[in-house]
């Protein structure tokens, strides 16, 4: 039954993926002819026309699309106009950096948020609850670039304990991860807290107390487990948000990831790269969503599809 479900989902996902790519293909072309962007400002009209011809941009759009589909069949995702190489290579090269960042940041944020949120929910209105709420919300609603730049100014320039940016050592991870975590952390703390308060008022929590279970186990075993559904959903959404949108961190800290690549190629109308990055992230996002849906069934036996 589960395998059947996965199969069905995969099938649906492939259809949506094709739909997505088609949509992207036609819609990106609505955002203007890129020829002028690739040539110096003072280049002539003829030069621009020559460029369009060279890159097949002068063809009617449906011809371009058929060509694209045909190439897709032979796993050719097009050439990047900007980078002089295969677009899918560009996308795949950028992806791991983002994935690593997103994975570490989300894992940490979720774990931390669960602990903090659960403890806050255990005693609503307590000092811990209020402080945790304020701090996490402050983190979540401060502009990320603000935190990033101020962080660099303080920790790298002022105190000199962390490198400003770049990749390499473990120290290089600290600030990007911290910045990336803030919003997911803040949001998740709130979600965990809210659902946990309701869960903690359920009768089965009384049973657990009557059994003499440890408070910690009651909170994290019983109440948390029952409130995980929205939590993992939101976490999943935030994770996919990071997969295609860790732009600020990528640009400021110089992690060459897919978010920055996507923005650049959109602004530059590097269509093949736009399509390829969307393909790569979409596959990742679809997989995450399927995984989350499967998780629901494992987490709550009453759920069925």
């Amino acid at each position, binding site marked *: 039954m589960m395998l059947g479900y996965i199969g069905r989902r995969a099938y649906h996902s492939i259809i949506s993926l094709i739909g997505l790519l088609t949509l992207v293909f036609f819609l990106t072309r609505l955002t203007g002819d890129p020829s002028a962007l690739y040539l110096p400002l003072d280049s002539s009209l003829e030069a621009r026309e020559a460029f369009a011809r060279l890159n097949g941009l002068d063809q009617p759009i449906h011809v371009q699309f058929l060509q694209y589909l045909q190439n897709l069949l032979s796993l050719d995702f097009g050439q990047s106009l900007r980078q002089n190489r295969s677009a899918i290579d560009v996308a795949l090269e950028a992806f791991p950096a983002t994935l690593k960042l997103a994975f570490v940041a989300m894992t940490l944020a979720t774990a931390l948020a669960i602990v903090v949120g659960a403890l806050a929910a255990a005693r609503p209105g307590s000092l811990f609850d209020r402080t945790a709420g304020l701090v996490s919300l402050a983190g979540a609603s401060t502009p990320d670039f603000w935190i990033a730049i101020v962080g660099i100014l303080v920790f790298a320039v002022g105190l000199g304990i962390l490198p400003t940016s770049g990749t390499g050592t473990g120290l290089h991870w600290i600030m990007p991860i911290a910045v990336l975590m803030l919003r997911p952390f803040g949001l998740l703390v709130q979600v965990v807290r809210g659902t946990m308060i309701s869960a903690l008022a359920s009768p089965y929590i009384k049973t657990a107390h009557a*059994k003499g279970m440890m408070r910690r186990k009651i909170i994290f075993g019983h109440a948390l487990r029952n409130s995980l559904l929205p939590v993992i959903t939101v976490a999943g959404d935030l994770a996919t948000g990071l997969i295609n949108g860790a732009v600020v961190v990528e640009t400021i800290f110089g992690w060459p990831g897919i978010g920055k690549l996507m923005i650049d190629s959109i602004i530059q109308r590097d269509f093949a790269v736009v399509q390829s990055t969307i393909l790569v992230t979409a596959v990742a996002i679809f997989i995450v969503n399927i995984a989350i849906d499967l998780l629901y069934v494992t987490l709550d036996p009453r759920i069925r599809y």
Partner: protein
Amino acid sequence: MTASDKPILKIDNLTVDFLSEGDPVRAVDDVSFDVCPGETLVILGESGSGKSVSTGTVMGLIDCPPGDIVSGSLIFDGTDLSRLDEEERRELNGRRIAMIFQDPLAYLNPVYTVGRQIAEVFESHRDGDAGPVRDKVVHLLERVGIPEAEKRIDYYPHQFSGGQRQRVMIAMAIALKPDILIADEPTTALDVSVQSQILELLRDLQRETGMALIMITHDLEVAAAMADRIIVMNGGKVVESGPAQDIFTNPGHAYTRRLMSALPHAGSSPKQPRAEIKGEILLQVEHLSKHYILGSGPFSSKREFRAVDDVSFTVRRGETVGIVGESGSGKSSIARMLLRLNDPTSGKALFAGADIFKLEGKALNGFRRRVQMVFQDPFGSMNPRMNVRSIVSEPWVIHRDILPRARWKDRVVELLELVGMKAEHAERHPHQFSGGQRQRIAIARALASEPELIVCDEAVSALDVSIQMQVIALLADLRGSLGLSYVFITHDLPIVREFADRILVMQQGKVVEESETEILFNSPKHHYTKSLLNSVPRPKWA
């Protein structure tokens, strides 16, 4: 077994309030009682009289606030329970004091297997005795009579029947052989034979370990069978207490007297078949089957379980068909199918000539107005966000033509009063009621839509005898005046005998016997029916 006379638990002057905007609700008022090792104390009392709250206080399960322990001392084995810190409390709960909750579904965590939930008792109190926890859990489940315990241990609460969940609850409570067991209506969903098995189990435990038992029950036969001493509560106060036999034979307080006289089994006045049930056939069930697909996890192997197996019966207009039978024999499953809440695996059910399972749109809507159900688990069947007023008036919102809006408010109060509740209860939410009160709200809601057929699934099981009689009388009255029909699922033989015209006896998904009430009681044919009728508990002192 000798009950030592030094009380292991002594409660003095306990008063508990529930606070809210406005005046506090006094749930328990100056209650004192004690219980000695090996002794069984039965608490009888009106529904809503504070039985659950006062025993909940012993385990520290009343949330304060909004609960408020105004006064009282709780001494357990020499320690003052109100002075314990969290860790000391934890050490006591489950190991030395255990509790069987009244409402088994709500009190089981829906996302864990029952096995795991029972195992947690062992894990929370890791003591010397080793041995695989799982084996112990299986053993416990077997002791409480869960069939196929080895497999069932990996199932989730929602895959159990009402009575089975109750037994899981019991297994959980007796896991560590506590010094005191508080059993809050432990047998409300159990058929008589399983009930006697459980009662026997409890007595065994008392013999083995000298466990003190505080048992709350509405069932006078059970009370008589178990009690050494009895206290009777009414309106939050203890109105009478004393040795069991004295109370039964010589009740002092007016309420106790009323209780005893309401006992339906006392005078088994042979009932004449009522004449008016010759009406047309309202419901005709043909070869109904329900097979559940069972599996413990999303990826585990599946197997089929026949919960309802080729069941056929009919209900005439104005007739009451009682369904009795083994716990887990598929009674609730039938009810749910008749209400179109679960799809049957096969079979037909015709309501007023139309196949219920094929109804769509308007016809379905009309059907739902004409048929109502009182669920076995009343708490779960009410939206926790709605207050009683909106719960009871919901049918009128759905079916606009039943009652003009202006009348709703009065009608809600009327209905509540019919089932023995008060007008002020209308503004409260479900969690603020006792088990019996919730059950009555559920009945009031079922009556609100003025149906033709009500499926009652253990609808009066949590009510004390006096209120039970009041409700039954109400139902009978409606049957007479409006021609209502009932499918009345219960474990309580005296009640079906009193109320039902015809009875189906079920065992393992099959109807093993069906006949007129009096015929069944006087000359049961199937051996299971016979065993049911014979296992009526006997007073302890007899």
